[in-house]
């Protein structure tokens, strides 16, 4: 048999190049995705630059007084121009108000949130857990103007009663003293509304952290005869401690930046007020909204400076919080 194969062999494909160098399409892909990923850096940077650019003149003329004084006056000179020498801009009262209201929110909201998270993680039957988690997550999506209206029309009524009760029995504590008998629209009410507003975020973060508690340690605690509380105290709390602190700070950051709800329920008065039951207070965000409507271009620059201060403040609190949360699990026994 001599039927030799005479067919010319099909063209052998050239050897594939084996390389770790990405193809052109991949380089484009990585470039596009990376530039998209860097957008958060760009946006945060732009916010900082533009607020600084617009607020710089105010910060320069007012100096440290911008943070330490509580005087907000745009003086118009005879020629109809704003007189930068005579005008005073200071946000001390609003800074104090911001911290006061946010701290009230945290003090009231955090025990409730952490307790709720413990219940949802360690106690709740599956069916109840599902419903409650959905409900609390839904609350996180409620618009802030809704919280404002609810606070104004519903919470105000019962809050007034509680405020009177507190001032009656606890007026020996300086915070609860009433300089005058006006208890509506007080920082206390605003703090209550904000407490409700931060419940979803603090609950969901705490829940996430508690649910990561190592199962073997929990079972070890039970195997040693511990009750559920003993297990929580010996295992879950030490494990989750730093994460919860981070969650609390995220809640604080949220509460510090809230605008519309605070604007609605709080009587914004430009003076430093430590009496949480008294009808006067404010926070930087709501003050910006209040002054913005009738502000002259010069005053808007001052408001930009206030926005810059608020931005930096919330950025610091949030960054610290995120650092603490991401380190969870490395602490504990």
């Amino acid at each position, binding site marked *: 048999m001599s039927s030799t194969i005479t067919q010319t062999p099909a063209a052998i494909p050239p050897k594939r190049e084996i390389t770790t160098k990405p193809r052109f399409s991949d380089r484009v892909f990585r470039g596009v995705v990376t530039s998209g990923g860097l957008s958060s850096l760009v946006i945060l940077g732009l*916010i900082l630059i533009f607020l600084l650019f617009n607020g710089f003149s105010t910060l320069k003329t007012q100096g440290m007084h911008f943070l330490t004084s509580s005087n907000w006056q745009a003086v118009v000179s005879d020629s109809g121009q704003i007189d930068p020498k005579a005008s005073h801009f200071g946000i001390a009262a609003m800074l104090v108000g911001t911290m006061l209201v946010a701290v009230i929110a945290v003090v009231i909201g955090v025990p409730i949130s952490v307790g709720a998270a413990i219940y949802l993680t360690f106690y709740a039957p599956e069916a109840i857990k599902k419903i409650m988690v959905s409900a609390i997550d839904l609350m996180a999506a409620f618009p802030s103007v809704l919280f404002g209206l*609810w606070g104004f029309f519903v919470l105000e009524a019962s809050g007034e009663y509680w405020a009177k009760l507190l001032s009656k029995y606890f007026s020996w504590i300086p915070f609860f003293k009433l300089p005058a008998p006006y208890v509506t629209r007080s920082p206390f009410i605003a703090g209550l509304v904000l407490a409700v507003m931060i419940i979803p975020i603090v609950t969901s973060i705490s829940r996430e952290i508690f649910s990561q508690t190592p199962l073997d340690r929990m079972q070890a605690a039970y195997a040693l005869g511990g009750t559920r*509380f003993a297990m929580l105290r010996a295992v879950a709390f030490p494990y989750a401690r730093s994460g919860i602190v981070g969650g609390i700070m995220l809640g604080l950051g*949220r509460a510090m930046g809230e605008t519309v709800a605070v604007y609605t329920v709080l009587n914004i008065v430009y003076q430093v007020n430590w009496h949480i039951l008294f009808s006067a207070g404010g926070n930087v965000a709501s003050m910006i909204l209040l002054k913005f409507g009738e502000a002259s271009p010069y005053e808007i620059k001052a408001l930009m400076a206030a926005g810059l201060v608020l931005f930096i403040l919330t950025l610091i609190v949030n*960054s610290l919080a995120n650092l603490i949360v991401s380190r969870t699990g490395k602490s504990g026994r």
Partner: protein
Amino acid sequence: MSTIEKVPTPSPRKPWAATPIDRAKTAGILAAAIVVSVIVLALTPLSGKLAFAAVFFVAYLIIDFAVSFAKAGRAAAVDSVFRGLVTTAIAIAVMPIISILVTVWIRGHHGLHWTLFTMDMHSNSFTDPVGQGGLLHAIIGTFLLVIVAMIISVPIGILTALYLTEVRGRFTRPIEFLVQAMSGVPSIVAGLFIYAAILIPFTKTVNGIQGSLALAILMIPTVARTSQEVLKLIPEDLREAGVALGGTQWRSVALVVVPAARSGLITAMILGVARVAGETAPILLLTGGSGTKNFNVFSGSLGSLPNYVWQAFSAGTPESITRAWAGILVLLVIVVILFTAARILGNRKVGKK
């Protein structure tokens, strides 16, 4: 020959489950606490719902502690009291949700009217009787604002998520950090930024696109973080299979990973929309609140639901307050629908088409 004897399968035992005696005990403690609080309220000057709740709470904890202590000692008693405390916490946490939903319905449903969805406010004021004028313009406005914000923020958010999960370059950690920091930017600051960056130097007036840009800033972190969570759930096998078939990374991401995560990415989008649909502060600074229908986001004042609610609330008459609650009701229904849609999509198995 041995016949197989049928052994009745034993029902599983659950020694940790509550027995009827336990249930009776709990019911007894609750009843006792109610009785005690009624007596206390009758004998002391305390009165009102709040006093009842407080006395009941304390009475329950004390009785619970005493009963458990007598039966099983201190550790069990502390455990039991702690359970009571966390149960109270969840009850308090859920109370505002119920209160808010009930309030919105009770106060808002008077304001619901057919004209709400067919008319705008160009020839009516907020103080007119309910039933004249509507919020069609506001619904259109909110829809436009949100769509444009979505067009801007969804690509950026998903690209960020892809960077964090697929490319994992050297900026992964810083970007993760920055995205989280960005989610804490107060909405008023986002508004001020757009005001400073666009309104002052260029447009010098209000329009819709400025509002959309501010909303996009608030939306990006939500979209990015949710998408990242979803993409993390895609099994590594799928990526490896794509690359093993000779695909470039680009092709395996575009043709395998993203389609597999499709429903999750849509969920991320919807959650982002739900986050910003009711955002008020930047809208008040940037878009204006016209009462007439405006389909052009690039020019002219654009009314929106939050703005409508805000104006109606500020007007302060009973009619306008009713309008505000009706507006809130419509807004809330939209948010709840979006949220439910996100939940349903998100619960579907990842990777299923």
